[in-house]
């Protein structure tokens, strides 16, 4: 049922985008949906342990899923927006690297604090063996806990999640920027240079909003904590992808149609 409603919503949104801004709007909305899906999917990779991780009771990073993903994705958006004048592929790559870099440094510092501040080696609670390094965990796990720290697979998951988030956020930003830069000069009777600050601000605000929306949707799907791609909860991601696609389509049509509505009034 949910799937059918989602598909209908996406089709209606795409039709509206075509009706409002023709082919450019349709393509922009497709980009926004892909960006939203990347964000929703990427969040599932990020190892988040919440409150239990803050006490060494569960592996992962001791903060909320949506928050950490937002931090990484927005750092990616920062890099992507900066590289936007250099072209589409470079901006996307810059966004992905920005998000990945934040997660790489954060995950490393988490292990630095666990190891040098608390004397606790990393141990997963969900798998007995690290799928990448082959390290075994049961003997390192403290009694009465579900594991602690960030095993290497979780570190890799964090970086991949951050990169996907940065990529998705930047894609949403670039698509919206393109739409606004095409529409605004005619609407306000100004040059592209003159409207640039407003276009950048609007696209940035909408990109941040859509990023948070998709990150929170994915967090609901995860329900609490996740260790990374090796966690059984990771398999839930198809649901999040459908939800992220539908939500991005609906939010995206408002972002794309905003100026058309302004023009009407």
């Amino acid at each position, binding site marked *: 049922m949910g799937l059918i409603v989602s598909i209908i919503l996406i089709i209606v949104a795409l039709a509206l985008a075509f009706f409002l801004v023709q082919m450019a709007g349709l393509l922009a909305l497709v980009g926004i949906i892909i960006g939203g899906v990347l964000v929703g999917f990427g969040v599932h990779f990020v190892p988040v342990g919440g409150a239990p991780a*803050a006490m060494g009771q569960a592996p992962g990073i001791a*903060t909320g899923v949506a928050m950490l993903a937002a931090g990484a994705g927005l750092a990616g958006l920062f890099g992507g*927006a*900066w590289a936007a004048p250099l072209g589409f592929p470079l901006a996307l790559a810059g966004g992905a690297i920005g998000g990945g870099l934040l997660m790489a440094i954060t995950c490393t510092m988490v*292990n630095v*604090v666990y190891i040098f*501040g608390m004397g606790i080696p990393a141990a997963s609670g969900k798998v007995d063996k690290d799928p990448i390094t082959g390290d075994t965990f049961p003997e390192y796990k403290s009694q009465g806990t579900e*594991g*602690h720290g960030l095993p290497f697979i979780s*570190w890799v998951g964090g970086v991949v999640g951050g990169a996907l988030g940065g990529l998705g956020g930047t894609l949403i930003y670039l698509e919206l920027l393109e739409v606004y830069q095409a529409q605004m000069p005619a609407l306000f009777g100004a040059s592209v240079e003159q409207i640039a600050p407003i276009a950048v601000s609007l696209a940035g605000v909408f990109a941040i909003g859509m990023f948070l929306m998709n990150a929170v949707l994915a967090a609901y799907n995860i329900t609490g904590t996740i260790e990374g791609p090796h966690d059984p909860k990771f398999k839930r991601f198809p649901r999040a992808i459908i939800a992220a696609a539908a939500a991005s389509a609906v939010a995206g049509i408002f972002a794309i149609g905003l100026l058309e509505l302004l023009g009407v009034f």
Partner: protein
Amino acid sequence: MEEIIFGIGITALAGALATIAGAAEDTESDIGSQGDPNSQVQLAPQMGYIHRIFNKAIAGEPPAYGLWVALGAGLAWAFMAMQINPILAIVLGSALAVFVQGVYATTAYLGRTASLAKFEQPVYIDILKSMTTVTMAHAFVAIFAAVAMCHLIISALGHPFPLPLLGLVWGIALGAAGSATGNPFYGKERQYQEQKFGAGVPISASGNIVRYAEAGERNSLDNGFFSAKLGGPASGICFGLIVFFELWRTVVFEPIAAGWGAVIVGVVVILIFAIIDRYIEVWARKTFGPYVAPEEASS
């Protein structure tokens, strides 16, 4: 060449400001128990452990700092538009944002603690008076440093985002880095100081936080003092490195290979951090060894 050297200088300065912001952010959030260990501070009275720890966690650190830094940046931006000197504008904007933080901290403490009335947890007015101002002071340092960093990124390095938007982006990233790095140190090492060192806290010990200090009852100023030793500086280094590498790879390497230089250097930096992480992970396994259950006292 001169432009690149100028860019490197700004990058270093922005990295230093980010380091200060990160350290102040984590210490502030630990004094207010705003990071994830807040659940234990909230849980303790429900388990019968009445305490004098400040608790203002009604939002996670990233959205809270997103709000405060964006607010400080927005106000500074407005003051600058009124032709006020940028440094003064940033100070004024940050100071006004801190008042919002103060109101937030007060209502959050009263609300969270009052909700524990049926567990006989009192609202301590002296705690409210002494802790709120300390969190406000730390928040000012964090917000000022973050807004100043954002202003440098825009005015000296030419980032296209307006100041309030950049404040929101870096405010959320600041909260994410600070909560990720600093929370375990505050949660495990401080709130559960009497548990075994070098091991996680057993789930059965949840809520049994340390409530007494060397003299009298422990309060959040003691926790801030403790966090400032490692959790705060580590968070500062984390956020400082993030900002520094993000700017450095762009400023220095973007002119190479039509912009792809910055991407390649970013990948290389990520790989270097992967090696560092793996090295310390293996080092910890070898040095600390497998978990050994604590022996029961025999007499």
